[in-house]
């Protein structure tokens, strides 16, 4: 039996495969397709303090090997989550990790405080990288001072595992990664979406109501792998990698680059069973290459003798 367990700070995942926030609803949407108990964890849809309607339709554009979204954190607010959704989904035997968002530092603090009261939730993912909101979101994640400010503030009120999710839309990802590590992050997840845009040449209109949106899917994978590798070499905290993962081979690539766990995002839309297939694929890979513990793959890219 291969050992699929990985640790991200104090969080223990039964395997490195989790699902990315905003691409997996609250897990329930996939109940008819897969056994959710098999997942390492579920990063639920981005939560804010109050109800948010998100951006106007259209919010989606298909692009080569990817898609743009401009959902804009539509959700019913943290209290609704705690009272109406969490009681149902807490029954799954997997880590449920809320994705925390805000327009101001105070928002982030308040959402975190509410989650802190829930005993079984062992971690939060602080999203300082949403490109689809006018206030907060990515604006926090693209400069060190603001990234530090929000991380420190949340750290103050949260003592379980604090994962900070970074934006790839920056000149120097290591600088930001080191900043949030210094501010108390227990783990770094990356990448959120790349800022992109699409225009319909026939109507001559932008496809998204917000003009720009977030690019995800296989198209971004090379950028994500590069950033995971850079950050892996810059910080000590464990990394949760994502960006374009479609199968087990992509997952291995992310782990070799330095990810302790990974999140499957856009791929869930195309194949709702993909996360389970990835878990099975990792098991086969480990069998083939005689790897006993999946954690041996973390950062294990072989750079010694190149060619």
């Amino acid at each position, binding site marked *: 039996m291969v050992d699929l367990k990985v640790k991200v700070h104090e969080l223990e995942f039964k395997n490195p495969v989790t699902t990315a926030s*905003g*691409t*997996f*609803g609250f897990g329930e*949407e*996939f109940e*008819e*397709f897969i056994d959710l108990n098999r997942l390492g964890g579920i990063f639920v*849809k981005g939560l804010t303090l109050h*109800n948010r*309607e*998100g951006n*106007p*339709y*259209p*919010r*989606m554009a*298909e*692009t*080569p*090997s*990817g*898609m743009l*979204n401009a*959902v804009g954190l*539509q959700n019913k607010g943290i209290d609704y989550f705690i009272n109406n959704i969490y009681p149902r989904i807490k029954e799954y035997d997997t880590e449920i990790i809320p994705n925390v968002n805000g327009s101001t530092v105070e928002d982030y603090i308040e959402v975190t405080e509410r989650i802190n009261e829930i005993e079984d939730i062992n971690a939060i993912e602080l999203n300082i990288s949403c490109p689809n909101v006018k206030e907060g979101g990515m604006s926090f994640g693209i400069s060190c001072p603001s990234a530090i400010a929000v991380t420190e503030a949340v750290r103050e009120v949260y003592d379980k595992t604090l994962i900070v999710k970074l934006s790839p839309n920056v000149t120097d990802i290591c600088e930001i990664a080191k900043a949030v590590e210094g501010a108390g992050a227990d783990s770094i997840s990356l990448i959120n979406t790349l800022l992109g845009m699409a225009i319909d040449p026939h109507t001559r209109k932008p496809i998204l109501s917000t003009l720009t949106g977030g690019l995800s*899917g296989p198209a971004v994978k090379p950028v994500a792998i590069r950033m995971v590798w850079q950050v892996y070499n810059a910080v000590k905290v464990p990394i949760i990698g994502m960006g374009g993962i479609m199968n087990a081979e992509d997952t291995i690539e992310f782990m070799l680059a330095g990810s302790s766990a990974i999140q499957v995002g*856009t791929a*869930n*839309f*195309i*194949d*709702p*069973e993909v996360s389970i297939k990835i878990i099975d694929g990792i098991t086969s890979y480990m069998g083939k290459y005689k790897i006993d513990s999946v954690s041996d793959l973390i950062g294990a890219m072989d750079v010694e003798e190149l060619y």
Partner: protein
Amino acid sequence: MKKIQDCKVLGVKNLNDDTYILELTTPETPEIIAAGNFAEIKVDHTPDVFLRRPLSIFDVDYTNKKISFFIKITGKGTALLKEAELEQNINIIYPLGNSFKPEANGNALVIGGGSGIAPLLLLANELKIKKSEITFLLGGRKNTDIHLFKEFEKYGTVLITTEDGSLGEKGRVTDHSIFNSINGFTKIYTCGPNPMMKAVGEIASANDIPCEVSLENMMACGFGACLCCVTETHEGNKCVCTEGPVFNVNDLKW
């Protein structure tokens, strides 16, 4: 129960240059389909189509394990499906979405435009079982856009408009003379281009006739996971793929 299934291509029936029916065999007895339900279809072997494509379920044959789609070519995915080879596997997720709520013992006006007629034969069947009278109003740009006339005729009267006047009355569906006296209808059901549905909805509301519309918003997943497909309603944004595609027109904030 939603299923992900590989279905074999049984045939592609061309109705004209840009419209066809795709028939698939399901590996087991198909799920129970209500009019308005749709499937998310994976278009394989192309670098250009990344996401699945939502298509209404046009017909289902529980005995012979068949399910079919009425498709109008609007782009890359719908063009490629037309080239599907016999016996090729096509992966679908279905049934998705809610469905029309056919009224019993009523007098139904069923309006379709373009690919919007896809769910209307199943709807007609349900209406007939519930003993409603049916009048169909089908619109198109020209006579070759009007499909399945004979099939619709089995269920009721079929009225037609074409923009060039080559078949039925000239003009758009809402220009049809039937709208001069629609108070006899107890419910309107419509599916087609948004501008058409909006115009129909306005007439329905003005005449206090209940009206259901089936939306075709762009979708990334089709089963409630991405929140890309929303439409604005009086109760906030709603998912067209799970809370729709069929809506009561009065709920929509168009």
